């Protein structure tokens, strides 16, 4: 089985986000960037499938400017075999990304396509589902367990109120939730080895992918700040305030 993993370069999750003073967007100048955490889980899952002998090859793909090669090298250091950068503007819309990934998946004849459930910058949670729709293939989003059973997958999904299990025939698209696995740290020898693994660069035109657009970002603002309230001295005072001041308790 051949596994394709799509990854995204995003702001490091430990960095506090600041809005630009002209409110045009979030300020990403000189900010630490990293592999999106959910994408890292997707890479880890693919590498485990390879280590288990289920997958023969793990290919990672990222769409963006040359800087995303840094995150592709990270994925290679975690155990992916080769990488593809599709050279395009950063922050491309989800449908364009899904159309590009469709072309890559077809070119690679991937059996399983793994993606993070969402990127922690745009928080869209769309790309995997869109890709599955374009390819008319089954999807399992929010995956917390993936079991390969011949030419099918049994996937447990984290849904509101519990867990759901689906069976999907390959090729299929799976998006990862937080508890699917705990990604490893790349070792120094593997980081060195990753530098020599193949990394191809393609363009959306070469792939024959048509870009979409349609959504315009008008402005970005910081969220309303919450003011700290008061400290109460006792449970009695707390209950009194909730009853008589906030009126949220009968």
């Amino acid at each position, binding site marked *: 089985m051949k596994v394709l993993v799509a990854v995204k370069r995003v702001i490091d999750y430990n960095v506090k986000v600041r809005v630009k003073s002209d409110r045009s967007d979030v300020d990403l100048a000189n900010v630490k960037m990293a592999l999106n955490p959910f994408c890292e889980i997707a890479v880890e899952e693919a590498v485990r499938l390879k280590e288990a002998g289920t997958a023969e090859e793990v290919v990672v793909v990222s769409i963006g400017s040359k800087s995303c090669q840094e995150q592709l090298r990270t994925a290679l250091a975690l155990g992916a075999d080769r990488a593809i950068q599709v050279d395009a503007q950063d922050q491309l819309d989800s449908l364009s990304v899904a159309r590009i990934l469709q072309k890559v998946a077809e070119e690679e004849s991937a059996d399983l396509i793994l993606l993070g459930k969402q990127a922690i910058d745009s*928080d869209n949670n769309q790309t995997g589902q869109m890709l599955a729709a374009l390819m008319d293939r089954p999807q399992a989003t929010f995956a917390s367990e993936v079991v390969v059973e011949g030419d099918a997958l049994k996937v447990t999904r984290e849904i509101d109120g519990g867990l*759901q299990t689906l069976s999907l025939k390959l090729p299929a698209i799976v998006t990862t939730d937080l508890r699917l696995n705990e990604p490893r740290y790349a070792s120094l020898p593997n980081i060195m080895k990753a530098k020599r693994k193949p990394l191809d660069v393609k363009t959306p035109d070469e792939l024959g992918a048509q870009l*979409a657009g349609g959504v315009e970002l008008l402005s970005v603002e910081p969220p309303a700040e919450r003011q*700290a309230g008061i400290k109460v001295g006792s449970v009695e005072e707390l209950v009194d305030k909730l009853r008589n001041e906030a009126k*949220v308790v009968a």
Partner: protein
Amino acid sequence: MSILIITEHDNQSLKPVTLSLVTAAQQIGGDIDLLVAGENAQPAAEAAASIAGVRKVIHADNAAYAHQLAENVSKLVVELAEGYTHILAPGTTTGKNLAPRVAALLGVNQLSDIIAVEAADTFKRPIYAGNAIATVKSADAVKVITVRGTAFDAAEASGGSATVEACDSVHQHADVSFVGEELAKSDRPELTAASVVISGGRGMGNGENFDMLNKVADKLGAAVGASRAAVDAGFVPNDMQVGQTGKMVAPELYIAVGISGAIQHLAGMKDSKIIVAINKDEEAPIFQVADYGLVADLFEAVPELESRL
């Protein structure tokens, strides 16, 4: 304009989030139709028809829609999409699973988790886990949107008398099947729909101590949640997690017990109307967002709270 809302239901009853979607649709303006796709979902369709302000309910009943698999329902929605300017789905795991699939088949982008309607084509939505709010404008002919339920008040569940129209179309994807599900059983309200939520953090010490919170919850009709630290420590199952990577809640009253207030937790509850924090560490960041803070040992304060309610 006309708007199609994809309802969230368990065939027997409508989930409350559907009522919030009706409010969002009313703010957009235009005729409002509801789709109930399920199996033996007559009760849900009837409930949908009685919501005030609804023009028509489209009821598609077939085994293919029993578990609302995105592969099947997306094709049904695309078939029905003709003539609608907006298609709204809830920002739940079901809605998020479905809406992008619909958008891709229609050849348009999708707007996720809107929290405000600025105009029929302009919406506000949180990005970076709510650390920034984006205003976005869609030029697409049909706008496919998921709506964060807690950001909109519930519409009146009764008073309407919409017609119910049966739809016989069946779409069944051959390569996906439902195996099973394990839903947490509880008499308490669902976290995302509760008007009162009481959550415990690492300070609870162990899972048994959550019984103290359950007792307070029983008195307040509250749902019980947890911080990621409490979930990671194995105190409680992960479907109780409130936060950036768990459930987003915005109740009238949120009580945080033994929770320090990590950014990832605050992202999931800071839109609550009144926040109460009980923590023995007076430096805990949770106090910076709490309307009422009580610096106390939770093992004394929580039982006393229960007895005084």
